């Protein structure tokens, strides 16, 4: 809770006048632009609650306004919620000593353990996917059987309100499990989990994100929300599930179950954990779409801000194993053991058509439309999310909102099927043969879209013959579904966005196909609807999530078709470009609204003239190499110093290293005072490892007044060679250091090697966009 990773953010807590000093010291720097200065000072003069974040967060006008709105509601909570991860290895004396004792074969063994962990992650992610898949299938069949029976009975007996109520009741019942679990046990499990994982891999520790309870809530929640009929998919949550599994397995222990093994103890630090979480996310994608390569690329493109080449191969093994574990288990479930035909949670079926070169312009236009439609989706969802953050704060209100959405989903589906007059004779192999108000021997075409899981709907839109679904039916389906899924994403239930986007896109893509066929009914190239549905689905998805290479590969792998790679790439690129003209991708939008200090791909534009001394927090709180306990305590207890690293100086004031807050807490708790211990006695490295990752607050450390006069020798524990910059370093340079090395603290030195300040992730994040743009 305490750490913010910045020295200036602490002021948000303190209601005293000290904050305006802090704010003004930024504003009074020479090189800061005029507008910027005035805005800062006006804020510091105005409401004492307003912080600098409102100004710096984004140049985008709409986002800025919303953040202003949201700021009041979320500032107090969010600003302190996020810690940065410590990726920098602390090469202190303890570490060096341990490494000296290690032989080459020990080192080999650790390397081997990495491979073993990756294999375990892959296999267990695959198994989780199997559990999710089978449970959803069974629950869905059960639910649909009950409703269908009631419908068949009531069409004759004039009691159609019975199946409607039944459907609503079952939806609400099933979804309430997901909502209650999410809201009361692990709120971080809500949504698709991709934004959270993205933040984690970027270097921000979102609380609880990789805890076991999040995994439990995610798995149970996604089963309930999908089979409860919400407009969500189960693919996004797989990525989060894989990440949690990875974080759990790599530690070789579970704090929740008080289970502790001696395995993998070398991996108990943020750096190793992040690598494994990367692998877990890849395994999740791989299991979700049957796309091992797509999984690796997803980790590379979307998630990891810095990439270790050696990691690629391990992650690839992990994703392959995940996909094939799922494949094998599903083949056994379907009574064809060994028939590897079920690579992913979603199966798009076979695509065997081709396209003509002159169709590319058509696809291009579809890409543009996908970008527009995706941008509209994000804009609407943005408004809804802002409203939710502002007003829907009470927990029970959140649950009620979920239940209302699930009731409405059922009602819309029922009413749409009821109103649909498009009946087709049986015998053309539809997936769902719901008769409803149709004559005997016919089925309701709307039923193939609404009366099933979204995945099956996608499949119908992809593969049903030309003419099997009327254009009117598709329009009646896609318009409500668009708004429904827009409304659903961001609810407090685990929910994937891929499938709803694909469904919307496949629907309008098919409409395009029908139009093309109407223009040229006898042309060879307009007979194949699956082509247009697929391209539409890709365009919509690309316009919403704004991924390019990984999405292309995922779709190629999921459809098993390389023929469409060029059109897919074209539409995804075009959709991303068009969408980016209007707003950010949906995940980035949610990251921004959650006010997570995430570092973008690029440093702020035109910011070379901003220097370290403007960016850094100052004055930096420093400690002496041998400090008085009371000094340490007062530093730790001052909320202004809640960034977690403190530069250590020698008696002349020269910089000697960096010590972390967590290290100090452990030292205090174990009372390793100079006066109390034998010379040369030190805490073991294992003590630090065992406390990771859940540290205790300062309040449980009892220091008597007598002990306050003792000293702590920090020299064996401090990191003697942390990264430093001179105060003239430019913002882009600092940014690249942070981004490439995953830094948490960067000490700023002046010409005399004296510490003048410290830069943290949040300090950079605040400069997210150049003040010039504002």
């Amino acid at each position: 809770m305490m750490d913010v990773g910045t020295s200036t953010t602490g002021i948000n807590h303190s209601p005293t006048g000290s904050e305006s000093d802090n704010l003004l010291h930024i504003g009074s720097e020479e090189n800061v632009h005029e507008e910027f200065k005035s805005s800062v000072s006006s804020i510091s003069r105005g409401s004492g609650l307003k912080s600098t974040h409102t100004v710096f967060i984004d140049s985008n006008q709409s986002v800025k306004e919303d953040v202003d709105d949201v700021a009041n509601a979320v500032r107090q909570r969010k600003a302190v919620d996020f810690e940065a991860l410590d990726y920098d290895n602390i090469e202190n004396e303890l570490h060096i000593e341990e490494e000296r004792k290690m032989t080459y074969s020990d080192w080999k063994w650790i390397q081997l353990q990495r491979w073993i962990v990756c294999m375990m992650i892959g296999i267990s992610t695959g198994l989780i996917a199997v559990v999710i898949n089978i449970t959803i299938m069974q629950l869905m069949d059960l639910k649909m059987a009950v409703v269908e029976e009631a419908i068949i009975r009531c069409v004759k007996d004039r009691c159609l309100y019975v199946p409607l109520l039944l459907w609503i009741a079952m939806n609400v019942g099933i979804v309430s499990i997901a909502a209650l679990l999410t809201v009361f046990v692990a709120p971080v499990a809500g949504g698709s989990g991709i934004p959270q994982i993205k933040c984690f891999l970027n270097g921000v520790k979102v609380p609880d994100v990789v805890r076991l309870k999040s995994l439990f809530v995610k798995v149970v929640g996604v089963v309930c929300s999908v089979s409860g009929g919400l407009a969500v998919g189960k693919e996004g949550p797989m990525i989060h599930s894989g990440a949690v599994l990875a974080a759990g397995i790599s530690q070789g222990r579970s704090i929740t179950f008080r289970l502790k093994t001696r395995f993998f103890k070398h991996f108990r630090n943020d750096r190793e954990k992040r690598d494994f979480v990367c692998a877990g996310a890849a395994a999740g994608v791989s299991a979700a779409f049957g796309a091992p390569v797509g999984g690796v690329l997803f980790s590379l493109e979307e998630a990891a801000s810095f990439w270790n080449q050696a990691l690629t191969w391990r992650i690839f093994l992990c994703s392959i194993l995940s996909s094939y574990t799922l494949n094998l288990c599903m083949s056994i479930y379907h009574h064809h053991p060994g028939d590897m035909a079920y690579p992913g949670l979603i199966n798009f079926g076979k695509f065997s058509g081709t396209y003509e070169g002159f169709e590319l312009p058509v696809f291009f236009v579809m890409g543009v439309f996908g970008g527009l439609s995706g941008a509209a989706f994000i804009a609407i969802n943005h408004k809804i999310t802002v409203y939710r953050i502002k007003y829907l704060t009470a927990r029970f209100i959140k649950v009620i909102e979920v239940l209302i959405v699930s009731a409405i989903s059922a009602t819309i589906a029922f009413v749409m099927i009821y109103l649909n007059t498009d009946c087709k004779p049986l015998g053309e192999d539809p997936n769902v043969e719901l008769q409803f108000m149709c004559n005997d021997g016919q089925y309701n075409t709307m039923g193939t879209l609404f009366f099933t899981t979204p995945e099956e709907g996608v499949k119908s839109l992809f593969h049903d013959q030309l003419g099997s679904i009327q254009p009117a039916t598709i329009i009646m389906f896609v318009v409500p579904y668009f708004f429904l899924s827009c409304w659903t994403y961001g609810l407090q239930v685990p929910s994937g966005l891929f499938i709803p986007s694909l469904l919307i896109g496949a629907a309008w893509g098919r409409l395009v196909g029908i139009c093309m066929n109407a223009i040229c009914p006898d042309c060879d190239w307009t007979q194949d609807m699956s082509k247009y549905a697929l391209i539409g689905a890709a365009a919509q998805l690309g316009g919403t999530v704004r991924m390019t290479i990984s999405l292309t590969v995922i779709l190629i792998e999921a459809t098993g078709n390389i023929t469409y790679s060029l059109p897919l790439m074209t539409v995804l690129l075009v959709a991303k470009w068009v969408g980016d003209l209007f707003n950010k991708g949906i995940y980035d939008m949610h990251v921004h609204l959650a006010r997570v200090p995430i570092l973008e791909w690029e440093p702020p534009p035109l910011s070379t003239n901003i220097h370290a001394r403007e960016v850094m927090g100052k004055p930096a709180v420093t400690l002496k190499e041998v400090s008085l306990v009371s000094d340490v305590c007062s530093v730790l207890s001052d909320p202004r110093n809640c960034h977690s690293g403190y530069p250590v100086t020698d008696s002349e004031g020269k910089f000697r290293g960096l010590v972390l807050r967590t290290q100090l807490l452990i030292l205090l708790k174990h009372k390793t005072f100079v006066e109390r211990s034998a010379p040369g006695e030190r805490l073991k490295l294992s003590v630090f490892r065992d406390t990771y990752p859940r540290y205790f607050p300062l309040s449980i450390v009892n220091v008597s007044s007598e002990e306050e006069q003792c000293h702590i020798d920090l020299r064996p524990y401090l990191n003697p060679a942390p990264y430093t910059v001179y105060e003239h370093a430019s913002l882009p340079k600092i940014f690249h250091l942070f981004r490439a090395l995953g830094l948490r603290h960067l000490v700023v030195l002046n010409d005399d090697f004296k510490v003048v300040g410290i830069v943290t992730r949040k300090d950079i994040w605040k400069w997210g966009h150049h003040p010039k743009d504002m």
Partner: protein
Amino acid sequence: MDILNFSLFCLLSLLRLSQSFASATETNTSSSQWVEGTLVGSSGNEKSYRRECWSKKNCDKDIMTGSVSPDCMRYLEQFSNATAKFINCTVANARPLHYCENCVSEYMSVNNVYKIIFNNEGKNESSNCKRQILRADNVQVVLATYNFILYIWDKSKCDQCFDVTESNDTQIYKPAESTKKLLAMIENTLSCFSDFGQGVVPGLVTQDPNQTVCSFCVKLYCEANDYYETVEKENKLCSDLIDSMNYTRLDWGQKFKCSVAQKDQGEIWEIAALVFSLPILLYVGVWVHANQDFLLGHCGVIRHTRLDNAE
């Protein structure tokens, strides 16, 4: 699409094959067109010769001396006849769909001959029919044809209508009891339709249900319908049954208008209105509640406590 192309190809090649055999067996004059050619000796001595044949008997002899042994040749002819008969039967029974029922013996004979060829692996090259017939060339017409027949049979789920018993290496196909019963019920229903639905012109769309048919045949129809569903649950439906039932249902629904669904009396709309009003209530309520705080001037205090609770 692949399957379709493939089956089309198979069908064409099969027709060609059967035509040629037919022509070879039917008339002497036409047979001359077909066997004329060069045959290469099997011993590898490249002893090639050219000979024309004018009668069926001669032709057979000629083929015997070719690379394919006479036994194998006989099997090939048997297979050709069997497949031709099966295709003939299937296409003839395609509409209304009854080939599972009517072509099962043809299907079995195709299988039998194929099995003989497949299991015939002689010691030397010349008597290995499997090799000489199935894998002799790059088209592999026999194999393709056989796969096509299997494809039709499987796609139609024909096996599900039969009780297949196996006794010492021979499979016996007997129509299942449920199949017979269901077919009889559907037939009864259809004959009821034709008895009472005399005045109905096919294709003429009328709005009013045909009262005579509806009232007289409803019992038969419902019984058939219900029994169909039980059979469906047992997974014993083949295309014959599915197709007959579908068309019976279509007759009932479209031709005679007997299955008019009961429109509801507005309850759905009441429920829908109620459900749709819920979110409006929720959102407006929450919004008003939040803004009330502002109006009362306690905004800061109240908001803080709520945020604390939220954490």
